[in-house]
């Protein structure tokens, strides 16, 4: 059945009224001498403008890094099956640690520490500083630095106010602040 339909004769745009060129323009035989195909009899006028389009002539901005729907084209069935969903018990709980004035950040795995004191020892070692005594009323006294963290809501909180387990689950990022700036933080709510 398919062989019967010859689309060469069907490209007669006048007969099918599908022509979108300006009224009065003539249909021309293939002007585009790059094309060898005799089927292309009608595109001369319609596409004259487009054939000048250059590769760089694109309005769209480069694709953003945000995920595009359906790209790359991997099947969702396959996506769900390739990587086993790792349980929390297996993966670490890595958070970024920044220190005011330091050129780059570090990352630590909160899971390996048993409590605040171990965490502070590790931070003191990592950044070569001292963190003072914690008190509920006054935060960290007697030191140049105070540890703060960003919680799930994006708020900057002083480390040490809540039980260790709760801190581990809500801490998204650590920030070691200069003592002078840390006086604003203090007693939670």
């Amino acid at each position, binding site marked *: *059945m*398919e062989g019967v*339909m010859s*689309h060469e004769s*069907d*490209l007669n*745009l*006048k007969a*099918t*009224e*599908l*022509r*979108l060129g300006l*009224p009065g323009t003539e249909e021309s035989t293939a002007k585009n001498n*790059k*094309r*060898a*195909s005799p*089927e*292309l009899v*009608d*595109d001369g006028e*319609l*596409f004259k403008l*487009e*054939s000048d*389009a*250059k*590769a760089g*002539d*694109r309005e*769209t901005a*480069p*694709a953003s*890094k945000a*995920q*595009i*729907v*359906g*790209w*790359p*084209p*991997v*099947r*969702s*069935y*396959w*996506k769900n*099956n*390739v*990587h*086993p969903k790792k349980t929390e018990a297996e993966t670490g709980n890595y958070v970024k640690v920044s220190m005011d004035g330091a050129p780059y950040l570090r990352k630590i795995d909160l899971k390996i520490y048993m409590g605040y004191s171990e965490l502070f020892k590790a931070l003191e070692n990592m950044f070569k500083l001292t963190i003072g005594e914690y008190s509920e009323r006054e935060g960290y006294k007697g030191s140049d630095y105070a540890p703060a963290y960003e919680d799930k809501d994006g708020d900057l909180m002083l480390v040490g106010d809540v039980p260790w387990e709760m801190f581990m689950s809500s801490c998204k990022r650590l920030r070691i602040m200069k003592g002078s700036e840390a006086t604003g933080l203090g007693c939670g709510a």
Partner: protein
Amino acid sequence: MAQSFPEDVLEHVFSFLNYDKDRNAVSLVCKSWYEIERLCRRRIFIGNCYAVSPEIVIRRFPDVRAVELKGKPHFADFNLVPEGWGGYVYPWIVSLARAYPWLEEIKLKRMVVTDESLELISKSFKNFKVLVLLSCEGFTTDGLASIAANCRNLRELDLGESEVEDLSGHWLSHFPDNCTSLVSLNISCLGSEVSFCALERLVARCPNLKTLRLNRAVPLEKLPNLLCRAPQLVELGTGAYSAEIQSDIFSNLAEAFLGCKQLKGLSGFWDVVPAYLPAMYSVCSRITSLNLSYATAQNPELVHFVSQCSNLQRLWVLDYIEDAGLEALAASCKDLHELRVFPSDPFDAEANVSLTEQGLVAVSEGCPKLQSVLYFCRQMSNAALVAIARSRPNMIRFRLCIIEPRAPDYLTLEPLDTGFGAIVENCKELRRLSMSGLLTDRVFEYIGTHAKKLEMLSIAFAGDSDLGLHHVLSGCESLRKLEIRDCPFGDKALLANATKLETMRSLWMSSCSVSFGACKLLGQKMPRLNVEVINERGPPDSGPESCPVEKLYVYRTIAGPRVDMPGFVWTMDEQVSSSLSRVTERRGD
């Protein structure tokens, strides 16, 4: 003269024709041949379930034994077709049940299949033998229980990569004790555990079982139990290929594999523990098909295992194989026909593995029979594509996905037009092509000029203007399926090539620049096309006619507009374009 042969002689001759193309050609010779052929056609393939209605099929072919149907367009695999679009098989089953009580085979792809449909199948066809559901959805394990319980002569149950609602693993126990006919069972897509005892007994009593694909939940330690009961297996899909490292598990496994002298294909390998790969070494030299696309093993264990399979013809693997692994593959597997490399981390812009265009070049140069490629990578060059094209003029399927959209040749920063141009120019038998990377209208000119055997083309984030689309539609003589996303193709090319669309199965365009007005025009002018506009954000006529539609799906049909469309799909036909008559009057033709 056609009359000189008695009908039954012709019927006998026609019985040797298995391809639809041949049978269709024979039907066109004369009326009596049409009549004889239609009465003896036993297998029908319907590539688009909406292209024809069950009634039309049944009227023409009264005695069919095998039906194959496809529903949703291919881009549904990548979540581009909204939920509820269509592809419901139930109306078909109802009609088939009435018309073909002797139906034996139903194969479905990308269709919505309900438990109701499965139950109806299981009860309507007394001699039902084969059920294949590829990438289907909509059914639960209850539906499978009906099939197991009622299909006395079931030979094949293949659930492909369907999405099944897993209510319980108990369904498998519904196979009666006197069911011994199974030849092929694929339950790899199921999540929950089936009763292992029931599975073991089923496998043991089916002496003709050749294909067994287990699901992830079947533990590795139990695999030997099944292999020992089915040493005649030709294709095996393991369950999770992991266990604690214990020597007795290993030796049981190795011994079981040693007994499988017919094994040619392997798949499964979820959660693979590389230490257990050597248990399969005894079968490796006979393996022709290896699907490691779920195996998160890395080199050197991964490549060492693959290199053992010297007779490998088909390899599906994750990009953990890296360039080095592909080079080893090229050296050891000279019979390779098909290679698919999937991305282990598709959403990370940064490469997590050392897999580049070099791996593909190595395999193309080293494997003389390579004809089918699907390759995901993060960089490509024209030089590499030209090398591949020159090495492999026998390429039939070439699908390349460069992860970053519009990525240029990483060496020259030019578009990849030349590279893909070389592919279509050298590979004269190319039937399927998927492109990616930075591409201008020029590549479409090459495709239109050279890709004369191309049947399916997939395009994304490519081209500059309508000229690109026009080159494809006017030049690709064999084109059947065209799917396009995020390209600046609009009305002109589409309307200028409207009649071409009737020679194709379907056209998909999403996030392009086709206007609502053009869709209406196309629908009105081409009554044998269904022009479906998919707009989830609201009716297409709520804005001006020049507004682009979100998604467009055009397919030829003799069944007219479908009646099961959801609220976000509109068919453009005469009723829709009442305002169109004013437009054509203004033209003054």
